[in-house]
């Protein structure tokens, strides 16, 4: 299974934000869409960073004025991205080992989706369920 399969199931819709928007607006988007990260795009629609809940939490204790600060002040710039052809297993390993919760998916320079660790866990769970079902069916078929 690859990332394209996950996107085909969950859809390619990504909630994005601009770097000059305020953290308060980002929080509103987190709540409205029940998500934990926003992809940051510049005027040209290029991916320039990722704003995760954790970025805000990390900055908040040192910064009383965090809510009015721009997204660009807090976002992570140096991010890892996935491609639609990435294998589910490599992505699961990378996200687990590097403690990454969200991977934007980029195809030929264009943002085409986002995969969260929840999506990866769900895909793995479904995969293993499918495997167990197949094996059970094969065992039962052998008895018929």
């Amino acid at each position, binding site marked *: 299974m690859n990332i394209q399969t996950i996107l085909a199931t969950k859809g*390619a*819709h990504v909630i994005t934000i601009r770097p000059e928007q305020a953290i308060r607006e980002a929080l509103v988007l987190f709540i409205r869409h029940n998500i934990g990260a926003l992809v940051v795009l510049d005027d040209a629609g290029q991916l320039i960073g990722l704003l995760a809940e954790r970025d805000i939490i990390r900055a908040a204790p040192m910064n009383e004025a965090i809510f009015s600060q721009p997204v660009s002040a807090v976002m992570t710039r140096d991010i890892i991205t996935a*491609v639609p*052809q*990435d294998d589910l297993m*490599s992505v699961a*390993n990378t996200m687990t080992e590097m403690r990454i919760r969200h991977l934007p998916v980029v195809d030929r320079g264009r943002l085409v989706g986002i995969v969260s660790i929840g999506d990866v866990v769900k895909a793995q769970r479904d995969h293993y369920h499918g495997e167990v079902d197949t094996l059970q069916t094969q065992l039962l078929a*052998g008895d018929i």
Partner: protein
Amino acid sequence: MGQPGTDTNPLRVAIIGAGPSGFYVAEHLLNQQGLVVEIDMLDRLPTPYGLVRGGVAPDHQKIKAVTATYDKIAAHSGFHFYGYVEFGKDLTLHDLREMYHQIVYTTGAQTDQHLGIPGEDLHGSWPATAFVAWYNGHPDFCDYQFDFSHERVAVVGVGNVAVDVARILCRTPEELATTDIADYALEALRHSRIKEVHMLGRRGPAQAVFTNPELKELGELAGAEVSVLPEEVALDDLSRIALEKSQDRATYRKLELLQKYAAQKATTKPRQLIIRFLVSPVELLGNADGQVAAVRLVKNVLYATEAGTLRPSPTDQFETLPVGLVFRSVGYRGVPLPGVPFDERWDVILSKCVNCGRKQG
């Protein structure tokens, strides 16, 4: 009117497509505690079971025994099957919306992904799905004519469908006669002059997606010897590191089998099945009649993506493999249904586009 799913107002569900997915959806719905459901399963063909009938290889009879499970589901009083009913022709989305609370599309991935290379549409270049459906007696494909008079064949892909295609091409008529293969296919393959079947994988042996029982079976063919080039089965550094990290036993076993095939001495069996790795077709070359005459291959090396997947990257080394027949088996895609939103990018019907009443969460 209250929520459907009760004795007086059962949840009425239409399932389009009577393959495995359709039956599992039906089973799931019928097993819901406290939900009264009436399921009508429709199929374009007069017969149920979809890919189990038209896709599972005829020499893998045991797998087809899974239909016993589907028969149990079908025996449920809330379940009805209507064969020979084509969505979009005999019934439209509009008709179904009037009659059902829910519509589930389980029409599968019916056609193949394109290679996207020049010459792909030459005569003699086929989707593996067409060949598979043909030897399984699918009514849409039984009139197809495959020309087995060529000595060399390429099967593009190293998944289990590619293995099925290669294995059926390599089986002796005596072996095939004991299977469930369509009579006309057995007759056509009886006159096959194929001597070499080349399976082409774009990545390395550790990334090949065929499963080990299928790979092992290739080593047990009565009339064909399987071989692998030793230099193509040697593990590159990236794959070795990935494997040391994952410690995946199935991959170790796969490599063992492939290395065994690579070390095998040539025998006198009439056919050769050659499994190639790290090569991608870049062009199909035709003769004056527009018939496939060769496939041009580029040698690949592997690189790791940021997320850690090993992917092929072409080098500047090419080779030309003369072949008269090509079967493409590099993945499958769904086909749009009339009136149903279809995502062209992923070649699927996106669940959330269709009437399921939930906002993106």
